């Protein structure tokens, strides 16, 4: 557990990322504010197309050609603005201070290099180590992520490993330089539940050993509930709700969060009917006016169609981008 006074490790302010597409400008991330404190586990939840992966890429300045990070966006790591760093210094940040684990372990590994040499390479990029020492660090790290016969396995190629093992290798590679922040983008989505449980357990224990902070990006509310201390919910390129995990699940303030929670069938108590959210996520080239959720919201009234709500304080440490926070009596007037 992290105290709320812990210093901010990562501070994102007013992040805007857009892409030029044939259908117009897609504002994938549109004014995002987010804080991760030292040692803290923060969840970033949303459905596909909400901008969560673009956020992860923007933190590490990995948004590809065609993507544009707007001036005025800020990504600060321990006070340093990463977006303003010279390329060389940014390279020293990537992998060393901030590491990234992707969803798809098969495509994130080089198929023609042994896994040991790929991890050793990560070490040698950031630390002046002899080849043999870097290899030893790689083997140690493979042991730490629970790969049996690590010395032998280090000589294997990615295709010789199962999906769960590959994800362990990626975690080893991400953590070998002992980063202060791990960004995990859907780290268990491609895995079976029993393997997912093992990997989450592994990440949790390594995080404690290394005192590392984590930004966990996922669409899976169950994974967030069990892993994160604090959660940001993202919809249509914006944060729509922010709260301690317990508060968010017990008292969701934004109708989108409420809808998501109602839409998940619970393995514990079967519900008669799931409360589906009507409609679908609009394309990033045409965000609706006013509140971006209003076309799908059961409570929406005129104000929601015209005025864009800011993040409003719903309770201590709990904010929601919804006019219902100011006009809670509207909930009584169900359409």
């Amino acid at each position, binding site marked *: 557990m992290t105290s709320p006074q812990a210093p901010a490790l990562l501070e994102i302010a007013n992040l805007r990322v857009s892409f030029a597409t044939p259908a117009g400008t897609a504002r994938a991330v549109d004014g995002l504010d987010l804080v991760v404190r030292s040692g803290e586990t923060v969840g970033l939840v949303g459905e596909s197309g909400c901008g969560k992966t673009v956020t992860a890429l923007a933190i590490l300045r990995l948004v590809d050609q065609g993507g544009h990070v707007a001036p005025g966006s800020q990504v600060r790591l321990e006070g340093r603005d990463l977006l303003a760093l010279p390329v060389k210094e940014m390279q020293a940040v990537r992998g060393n201070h901030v590491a990234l684990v992707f969803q798809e372990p098969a495509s994130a590994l080089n198929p023609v290099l042994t896994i040991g040499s790929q991890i050793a390479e990560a070490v040698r990029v950031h630390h002046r180590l002899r080849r043999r020492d870097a290899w030893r660090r790689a083997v140690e790290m493979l042991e730490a992520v629970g790969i049996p016969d690590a010395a032998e396995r280090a000589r294997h190629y990615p295709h010789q490993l199962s999906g769960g093992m590959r994800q362990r290798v990626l975690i080893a590679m991400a953590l070998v330089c002992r980063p202060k922040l791990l960004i995990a983008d859907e780290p268990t989505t491609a895995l*079976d539940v029993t393997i997912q*449980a093992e990997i989450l357990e592994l990440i949790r224990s390594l995080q404690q050993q290394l005192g590392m902070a984590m930004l966990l990006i996922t669409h*899976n509310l169950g994974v967030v509930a069990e892993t994160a201390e604090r959660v940001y919910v993202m919809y249509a390129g914006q944060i729509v709700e922010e709260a301690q*995990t317990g508060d968010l699940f017990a008292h969701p303030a934004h109708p989108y969060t409420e809808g998501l929670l109602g839409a*998940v*069938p619970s393995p*514990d108590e079967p519900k008669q009917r799931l409360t589906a959210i009507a409609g*679908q996520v609009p394309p990033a080239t045409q965000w609706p006016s006013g509140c971006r959720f209003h076309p799908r919201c059961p409570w929406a009234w005129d104000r929601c169609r015209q005025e864009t709500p800011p993040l409003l304080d719903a309770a201590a440490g709990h904010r929601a981008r919804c006019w219902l926070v100011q006009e809670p009596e509207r909930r009584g007037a169900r359409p």
Partner: protein
Amino acid sequence: MSGPVLLDVRDLVVHFPRRTGLLGTRREVVQAVNGVSLSVAAGETLGLVGESGCGKTTLARAVLRLVDPTAGRVTFDGQDVLALAPRPLRALRRRMQIVFQDPYASLNPRLTVRRAVREGIEIHRLAEGAEADRRVVRLLEEVGLTADAVARYPHELSGGQRQRVSIARALAVEPDLLVCDEPVSALDVSVQAQVLNLFADLQAHRRLAYLFISHDLAVVRHLAPRVAVMYLGRIVEEGPTHELFTGPLHPYTQALLSAAPVPDPARQRRRIVLSGEPPSPVRPPSGCPFHPRCQHPAKDDSCHRELPALRDLGPSRRAACHKADSVRAPASPSPA
């Protein structure tokens, strides 16, 4: 609630020979399905749960004879599916349809929604001309799409809409059984809920039977009153959903249930974290297929040596474990 048996699968085995090695000279056999028996009654839903590689998709395909089983029997409404000649098989396929996981891959990108849904109606001569078009529109409306979707191509539709088209296409020939292979796994949570509600509505209106396959326990629990759990080509446990979820008998079911993350931070559970990976279906372990990962305290030599049979362990409860205890009565009465 359960009517006469519609689909009956007995001792089904599906093995795939395959060539491996650098030059393709080594031969091995993938034992995808290894003696599965199950049945689905008319109007009933049987959930089939298992992790990737357990053989659930192969089982689904073998039931429809989209792959040829190595041994065993599949009976649909009294007819031996595996013995049918091509023509009667086609007639039978009208009555059993399948919805696949990936609506991007299962719809022909060059067919409009109208043609995709009409195809089955025409092949089985259920209607023609304007009447067929009227049926298409009715079907689209039934699955929650508007009539103007008829002129669309798959790429113009979202994932949820495409899956609705796949469902409309399957329903067009008025089947009695719908085999659903991970039909909501590719969809976002909010859209997944819409499609799950649709499956429930369709069953209520049409008295459809579902063989509903998923890796997602919560989805299966939501939709199926009866569940079978599959591991490495075999059914390891079967029973009424509520009882199986509240009192799992097989150590694999117990681990699977404890591993599923629950969207409720207030609940702390004891988690059984399995060590190791599921073994390869090319070289399944001796004895009980689960024994290398099993954490049952009474695990012993017999688990290494003898394959446990799926045996009766209480009213409509069955599990394939040497060490599982019988239950006398249902674990607890269902509050429904």
